[in-house]
């Protein structure tokens, strides 16, 4: 086994450094791909670092409390026949790759692109899987991957009410290891046109369908969160043969009522002080809502047209008590469907959603998470998502 580096991951477009809060591993441990090995906190969010390689931990280079740039060396893995001197030399010569350098890892770099859908500009963040020859051949799991042709069917990520493509910062890169992954901004959100004609789930699903058309995507795996999950489900109902699989994270409008107080609070919040307690309802751990996270949402909410767009969507039945789908809608779906619920969800709570049963449907409950399990417990959610692709 050669010497392998564990480096600081890049979560989302804006991250350029993070503080190492805690190590979960010690020298001498054997670790596996996907294992949570450390806790890193950025100005926006805290998250767990998953090992991208497996092996024996020989050295922890980064210290707890240290601020590290993206790509910095955190730890070194190697088996026992590598000498300490060789490890020292590896650390001494390790070079941090500039994530903004176009020469670096072009394939897996996220790109902001946009598509014209009717009179709207729909922005999206795209991650392409690495070309097979670019996969490092020193790791067992990637050897397996390199034998396979890259997956042809792309993954579409649909955020929820008031969210944007950056909500998937802990998921998109992971899914992007094997698939082309597109995280779109719904109209009225993110970088897309801040104008919504029809804010109903059906209306927004038509935009997603038109978006697939404009990108020439015949068939896709749909992953949606909250309102985005209802949109994904609506797409599956109307264009069933174009949806390869469906993953619904805390879906709205399937039987569990949406917390109308949250929607009103989110719409009405004008200041940081008003918005923070609203956003805290999203998470199981309120500490995840940092000042920067609140600022980012405020900056979005201040944009011309956003207020109106959020109103149009909220007024189009988002908080309706009756599910927007019936048993026949669901019975007509034959693709694999995963439902993911957050254990402490304060936005879509309760135990309803009985319409979501069937042989092809699996329900999952994710612990330590509220309404944003894909951010709060990304490791567990990513596993479920990948299983369903």
């Amino acid at each position, binding site marked *: 086994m050669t010497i392998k580096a564990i480096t600081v991951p890049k979560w989302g477009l804006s991250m350029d450094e993070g503080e190492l809060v805690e190590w979960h591993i010690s020298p001498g441990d054997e670790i596996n791909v996907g294992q949570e090995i450390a806790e890193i906190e950025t100005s926006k969010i805290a998250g767990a670092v998953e090992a991208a390689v497996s092996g024996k931990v020989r050295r922890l280079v980064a210290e707890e409390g240290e601020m590290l740039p993206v790509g910095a060396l955190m730890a070194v893995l190697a088996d026992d026949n590598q000498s300490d001197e060789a490890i020292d030399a590896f650390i001494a010569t390790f070079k941090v790759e500039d994530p903004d350098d176009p020469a670096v890892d072009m394939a897996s770099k996220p790109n902001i692109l946009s598509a014209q859908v009717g009179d709207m500009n729909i922005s999206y963040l795209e991650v392409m899987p690495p070309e097979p020859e670019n996969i490092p051949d020193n790791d067992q799991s990637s050897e397996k991957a390199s034998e396979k042709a890259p997956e042809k069917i792309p993954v579409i990520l649909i955020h929820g009410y008031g969210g944007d493509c950056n909500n998937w910062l802990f998921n998109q890169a992971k899914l992007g290891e094997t698939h082309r992954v597109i995280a779109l901004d719904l109209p009225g959100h993110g970088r897309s046109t801040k104008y919504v004609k029809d804010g109903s789930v059906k209306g927004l699903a038509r935009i997603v369908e038109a978006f697939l058309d404009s990108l020439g995507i015949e068939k896709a795996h749909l992953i949606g969160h909250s309102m985005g999950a209802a949109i994904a489900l609506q797409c599956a109902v109307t264009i069933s043969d174009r949806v390869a699989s469906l993953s619904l994270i805390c879906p709205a409008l399937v039987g569990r009522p949406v917390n109308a107080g949250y929607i009103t609070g989110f719409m009405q919040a004008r*200041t940081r002080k008003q918005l923070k307690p609203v956003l805290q309802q999203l998470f199981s751990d309120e500490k995840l809502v940092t000042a920067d996270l609140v600022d980012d949402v405020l*900056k979005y909410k*201040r*944009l011309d047209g956003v207020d109106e767009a959020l109103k149009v969507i909220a007024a189009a039945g988002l908080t309706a008590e009756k599910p927007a789908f019936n048993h026949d809608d669901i019975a007509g779906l034959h693709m694999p469907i995963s439902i993911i619920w957050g254990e402490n969800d304060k936005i879509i709570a309760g135990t309803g959603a009985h319409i979501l049963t069937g042989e092809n449907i699996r329900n999952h409950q994710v612990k330590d998470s509220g309404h944003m399990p894909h951010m709060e417990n990304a490791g567990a959610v990513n596993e479920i998502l990948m299983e369903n692709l």
Partner: protein
Amino acid sequence: MTQKTIREALNDALRQEMRRDNNVIILGEDVAGGHGGTGVIDAYGGPLGVTKGLIGEFGANRVIDTPITESAIMGAAAGAAATGLRPIAELMFVDFMGVCFDQIFNQAAKFRYMFGGKTRTPMVIRTTIGAGMRTAAQHSQCLYHMFTSVPGLKCVMPSNAYDAKGLLIEAIRDDDPVIFFENKLLYDHACDVPDESYAIPFGEANVVREGRDITIVAFSRMVHIAEEAAKTLASEGISVEVIDPRTTSPLDEETILESVEKTGRLVVVDESAARCGMAADIAGLVAEKGFSSLKGPIIQITPPHTPVPFSPPLEDAYIPTVAAVVAGVHRLLKV
């Protein structure tokens, strides 16, 4: 997102609001031309280049070069605002406001009150403030404290490009007279600024940096001095919260008082004036409403009570520095 300077962000705001609302007009000295041009077609765009390119798009009826008569600019703007337009008057140096006090203090600021609330005066006065340009005592003052003390005026002083754009758009959409103070040394300061339009509400302070041990309230360019000082102090283990009120009228008292309640210590960094300035105003606020939280005296870091010197070494000594802020914090913490 695109990086823009404060100059570009302000130009963005003016252009987008002029496109949105035909009633928005600009008037001032050299706003259409400026040195290096004929004044008919676009040249420099005002003495500081903020209005560059606007006459090309909106024409001379909406981007109006005036004679050098400050009082007429302000009087015309106040009258235009009272009769339905949304004028943005530019006065290249706040130091020249003296001749416009009647138009601003006694007319524009009072219309709403004198006419039984039936009159709106949606005018913006953009002007520059600040020492450090080697422009001597008559072109270097920071007089926002004087306008803050006049009821009926709103006072805005952005410290960064994101705030500059959002606050200027809010100012243009506001139905009361707004004085918009731009620090001359900050025009090239850049940060991420959305291309889209957005408005930042007045009266909400920006917590620039969160901290536990000490609160620093700073205005305009002094926010950057405070941030630098906070970085130095952080390396000594002192955790500083930096608050940028962004607007002095209305003033977000709550954010300041809540911060002092947490830290128990207050330093105000203000370039306006040693006497009767914003530092004294904030100190008075906290002494009255936050006294029980205070663990030590309130420290005011201001220039001395003197005209801005023309001698470069003296001018540098006049403006509050990072070292002065750090020393003030040390004095307060007795380290």
